[in-house]
């Protein structure tokens, strides 16, 4: 497996990476490896095995934590869908007796694709953990430490139907609310600008991500075609041993080599471009969520102000209204403060990630073209 190089500000205090992936019957297990000099942990270096559901559990716990309302919650890694790929491999493996050259090449291709798929999910999961580990506040989270250290199964079950339905309604309410809340103009220029920017950016990243995926798939199709052509030429070449047949065999070899390279071009584009865009689609969504939470708290604050005025006017429940207003004010200010920093960091990270990936993409494309 290629080394996944996730470039984030990690320091010696806490370094997290995914060192391994094990593919079992119907799930993939990832080995999370931690190196830390923090006193919170029993050892300096240790590993645990985690499944996808456990990553999601961790992510959700961040989202539901009120204290973290002012931060961009690192986006949850997407669910690995190996089923289609695994099925294909099984079918190919079930072939009785010997395989044709074409079938064999196809099997190799599918294996490579499977490995690439795992690499992609590696990437997202690593990125998730590294983001958490790099965040000054989130890295201290207790659930995070449990996730890293507890070497038993966390017994996290996936959400059942009722919970999923609740989530669905929550999201609906949130988006409806988001519409109302976004109508409120922000007094702060910085946030107003950020909001406009993020909405547009998010939409465009979504579009670019989809188009990039399509482009990558087309590349893969072309590589597949080269495989078939190579096999056909090989069949023609083995008819007899005349010069033209030898020529065909040579060309067939050439197509095989070309296919390998085209397949790599497709895979690298996928990794450097498509995955990058996919990730920033999620991050920009997380950033939008942050802004929503801030706007929400602003609305709450303004409502609390109005309520306080009313209470003072009627001289009823003033103390309660004052307390509420205080809380809202604090919440709003806390969120605003951290949000500003978070959004600045988001930009820095984004620029660095794009730079790194675009440079690597160009270098790989050059290598393959040569």
């Amino acid at each position, binding site marked *: 497996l290629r080394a996944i190089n996730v470039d984030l500000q990690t320091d010696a205090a806490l370094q997290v990476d995914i060192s391994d992936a094990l593919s079992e019957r119907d799930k993939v297990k990832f080995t999370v490896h931690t190196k830390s000099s923090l006193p919170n942990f029993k050892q300096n270096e240790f590993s645990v095995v985690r499944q996808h559901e456990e990553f999601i559990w961790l992510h959700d716990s961040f989202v539901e934590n009120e204290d973290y309302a002012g931060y961009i919650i690192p986006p949850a890694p997407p669910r690995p869908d190996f089923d289609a790929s695994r099925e294909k491999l099984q079918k190919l493996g079930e072939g009785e007796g010997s395989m044709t050259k074409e079938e064999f090449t196809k099997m190799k291709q599918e294996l490579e694709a499977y490995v690439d798929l795992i690499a992609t999910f590696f990437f997202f999961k690593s990125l998730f953990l590294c983001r958490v580990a790099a965040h000054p506040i989130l890295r201290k989270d207790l659930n995070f430490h449990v996730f890293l250290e507890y070497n038993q199964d966390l017994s996290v079950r996936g959400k059942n139907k009722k919970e999923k339905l609740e989530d669905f309604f929550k999201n609906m309410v949130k988006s409806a609310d988001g519409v109302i809340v976004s109508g409120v103009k922000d007094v702060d220029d910085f946030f107003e600008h950020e909001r406009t*920017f993020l909405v*547009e*950016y998010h939409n*465009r*990243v979504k*579009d*670019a991500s989809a*188009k*990039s995926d*399509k*482009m990558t*798939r*087309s*590349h893969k*199709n*072309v590589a*597949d*075609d*080269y495989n*078939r*052509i190579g096999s*056909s*030429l090989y*069949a*023609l070449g083995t*008819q*007899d041993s*005349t*010069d*033209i*047949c030898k*020529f065909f065999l040579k*060309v067939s070899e*050439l197509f095989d080599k*070309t296919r390998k390279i085209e397949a790599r071009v497709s895979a690298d584009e996928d990794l450097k471009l498509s995955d990058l865009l996919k990730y920033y689609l999620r991050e920009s969504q997380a950033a939008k969520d942050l802004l929503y939470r801030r706007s929400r708290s602003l609305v709450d604050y303004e409502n609390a102000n109005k309520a306080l005025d009313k209470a003072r006017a009627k001289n009823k429940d003033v103390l309660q209204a004052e307390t509420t207003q205080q809380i809202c004010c604090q919440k709003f200010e806390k969120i605003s403060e951290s949000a500003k920093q978070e959004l600045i960091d988001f*930009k820095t990270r*984004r*620029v660095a990630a*794009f*730079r790194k990936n*675009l*440079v690597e*993409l*160009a*270098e790989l*494309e*050059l290598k393959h*073209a*040569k």
Partner: protein
Amino acid sequence: QSSPSSPEPASLPAEDLSTNSNGPKPAEIMLDDDREDLFAEATEEVSLDSPERDPILSPEPTPAITPVTPTTLVAPRVESKSITAPVIFDRSREEIEEEANGDLFDIEINVSDPEKVGDGMNAYMAYRVTTKTSLSMFHKNEFSVKRRFSDFLGLHSKLATKYMHIGYIVPPAPEKSIVGMTKVKVGKEDSSSTEFVEKRRAALERYLQRTVKHPTLLQDPDLRQFLESSELPRAVNTQALSGAGILRMVNKAADAVNKMTIKMNESDAWFEEKQQQFENLDQQLRKLHASVEALVCHRKELSANTAAFAKSAAMLGNSEDHTALSRALSQLAEVEEKIDQLHQEQAFADFYVFSELLGDYIRLIAAVKGVFDHRMKCWQKWQDAQVTLQKKREAEAKLQLANKPDKLQQAKDEIKEWETKVQQGEKDFEQISKTIRKEVGRFEALKDFKTVIIKYLESLVQTQQQLIKYWEAFLPEAKAIA
């Protein structure tokens, strides 16, 4: 190849020969058959020696054929004359063929200038057919005519009717395309209809070039008329949905059924082997053709998707508020756009160079299979004649016993008639077998593929070189993001 024995003295009057050599003659076909019988002995030694001699994909130069590449015409070369029969007649058929061989196709055909004639559903494309030649059978050295697609089909139909049943592999004409033509007729001036017309023009050119390379077909007066005459009677029976067209389809179906029921006793291993080889070749070429067409399709998709991504990346670059990153993203968009263009050009190369030639060969092999089928039918006719003869003999024997003198005479006459038919049947069968052997020897499958494939690989290399340039230009931009 050994020298031939001297031919038999002619049984044909001299004047028939001289007139035949200069212009079209109505009783052409019969004369041809006689001539072939005449030269059967002379050419015997020259034909293929042993059955196991040549694999189908032999690159050895045989007397007549030269490859037909879609874009270039091979320069004529002088071959050593393999037939050295002494001259007996003024302009013997053999000699004319000799002259053709000797000049080796000093004839160059170009199809150009597609022009739409008429409007609406009655419109058609007219193509200019230009011939340059030094062969004396033509009236001029350089001339051109305007022909439409159905004219080409008409020519092929005539040639096929005359020559295929006696074993000559007549190159097939390009395929009809109702969809393609309708678009052109209706006046859709888009890239797909231009592509279609160009594809057709090139196919028509290749078709004519292959046809004139066939020494026997080159003699044909219909071909000459096609190339030379300013006016050509309209070939109405080639319309796809005409009565004749439907009749053809029915005949084809009937033939297919017949083929299944003819169980030929193949005494000649050579034929069995060749048929199998052609069958294999056919299957493989079809597979290859399908793969190449899939490649063309996917390449076009890739081009479209790259263009869409380029636009999207440009938009993203616009909304990015970090200046350097924004610029880099716009650059990325530009690179992808250029790459899209490259993909489009590559797609064109994929299809034109490779795929079209494959299609030609698949149709050519179908013609070869047709010729083998004709031989089977010929055999069947011979066998049927033998069966009938046997029956007549049995009938005569019965009449002998019954002692009926008038009917007996009639029976004897019939026996004589069928004896002749059996002899003819055997002769025809041997003749067609001989012709096919010669024809297959000329069929150098796949040799012109080499040129075509090399050209295609070169185009792939060029594409990659361009890609290198584009990405090299982009890299510093990406690195400049601060």
